[in-house]
């Protein structure tokens, strides 16, 4: 299986979004890599493929999916895996990632990242699906911790225990979304420090930074700048993640590219600043 480990991967990237296609096609954008939503490019042809293949000539690409539904009880969709493998074979990405969640049943697709019950049964389902995906794709998956708004009363372990077990049993990599930790910590009342301490950080390949909408329940909207509490967590965590790739993830209310590049510069500066404190905020 192909895999680039931390320290050998490009460091700072942005999501490649339609609003910025022209920027990437007409000029040099100062990023080490771009991340694309895999499904947007799992198409037969046309402009999306043209754009991605053109950008790929000069820039490394990470494939980030939202529809694998790695937690679906009825397994993975064969046509989906085939399309994803075709795309990965063409693009030769840094890695292929998706989320620890489920999106569909055999009958319907929610097109949302839905929460899993953290049970032994669900863990087995996810691990079986990860094994199948990795075998089919011929590369390790990288799985992102989700944000969520509810927990199931039958949960048998914490989210970080669940994710750590997936990584241990399948050998998959992890994509650490710090905004998701901030959102879920608020919504479920756990401490980000416990979450970070419970993960095998040596498995982390990439970090996501994003914004959310505040409220009694925080909503993971990705439509505003990275929040102060996410930046604070980032500053504390990065000394534990040497060489890991970092990306600003903005999916809605997308600003002009310079604004995102400014945030990325902030990420670069904070990651290279000597740690002021080695403890993650509780």
């Amino acid at each position, binding site marked *: 299986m192909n895999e680039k480990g931390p320290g050998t991967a490009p460091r700072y990237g942005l999501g490649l979004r339609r609003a910025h296609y022209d920027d990437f096609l007409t000029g040099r954008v100062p990023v080490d890599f771009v991340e694309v939503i895999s*499904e947007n490019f799992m198409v037969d042809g046309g402009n*999306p493929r*043209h754009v991605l293949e053109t950008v790929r000539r000069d820039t490394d690409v990470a494939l980030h999916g939202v529809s694998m539904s790695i937690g679906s009880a009825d397994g993975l969709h064969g046509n989906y895996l085939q399309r994803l493998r075709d795309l990965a074979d063409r693009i030769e990405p840094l890695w292929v990632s998706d989320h620890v969640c489920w999106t569909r049943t055999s009958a319907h697709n929610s097109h949302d990242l839905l929460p899993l019950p953290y049970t032994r049964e669900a863990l087995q389902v996810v691990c079986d699906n990860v094994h199948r995906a990795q075998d089919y794709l011929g590369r390790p998956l990288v799985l992102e911790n989700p944000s969520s708004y509810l927990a199931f*009363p039958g949960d048998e372990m914490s989210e970080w225990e669940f994710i750590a077990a997936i990584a241990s049993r399948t050998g998959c990599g992890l994509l650490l979304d710090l905004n998701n930790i901030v959102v879920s910590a608020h919504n479920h009342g756990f401490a980000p420090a416990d979450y970070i301490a419970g993960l095998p950080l040596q498995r982390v390949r990439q970090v996501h930074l994003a914004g959310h909408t505040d409220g009694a329940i925080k909503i993971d909207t990705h439509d505003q700048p990275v929040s102060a509490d996410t930046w604070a967590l980032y500053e504390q965590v990065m000394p534990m993640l040497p060489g890991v790739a970092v990306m600003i993830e903005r999916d809605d209310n997308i600003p002009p590219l310079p604004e995102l590049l400014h945030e990325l510069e902030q990420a670069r500066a904070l990651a290279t600043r000597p740690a002021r404190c080695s403890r993650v905020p509780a």
Partner: protein
Amino acid sequence: MAPTSLAGTQAAFMALLLKEDSPLPEGLDAERVAIYRNAYRARLVDALRETYPRTARWVGDEAFRRAAAHHLIASPPNSWTLDEAGRGFADTLAALFRKDPEVTELAWLEWAMHECFVSADATPLDAAGFAAATAQYSESDWARLRLHFLPGTQCTALEHRIHALWPLLAEDSPDEAARDGDYRSEQPIACIVWRQALKPVFLPVSAAEGNTLSLLLTGASYGEACAALVHRLGEDAAVAEAGTMLGRWLHEGMIRAVDVAP
């Protein structure tokens, strides 16, 4: 929530998203479930609005939102790609806007353009290439000639001048009042959708041309399509029209290959 299998949990949760009055499993917070239900609906309605922007402007935002919500209930998405969520929306609109058939025709055109946008790449055959490919054809070969159009090419009969309405419904169209008017066509017409390089385009044509192209797209030979044209227009007119159509399709870059049916 009572212990249940993962499949059962996921089926019950999906039902909560699709139908507000689905029973809430024990232990789940209704307010938090509603966050997911609202996000599901908003995301899908937004996806339909993105696929059908002109239809949305034509019927108005609230009417479109209701139609999209109805479509989600009647045809909940089952594909892994959000691009497919709008499949069949023209049929949903046909049932909802029975007195406004132009709505369905407009939606058909937007869906055809949407599909064509990501159809497989192919190089069109130009007139010289066509001449070279058919240079040795016998009369029998010409009768059995098959035209293979670019992937994504579609054609349908229309009763309204959707091509005239289309630019007036563009996002940057300045004058909503200019859309007022009767767009019914005096003659039955048709519309062809295909892609030129990376850009989906359409062309309004006569009903006769639309019928001919539709036959070819569904596997008829050139001879069979011409026979239908003779039946429709008479021999002299059909011969002239058939040549004109073929020339136009080549000139516009709609044909990717030709061969002779066995």
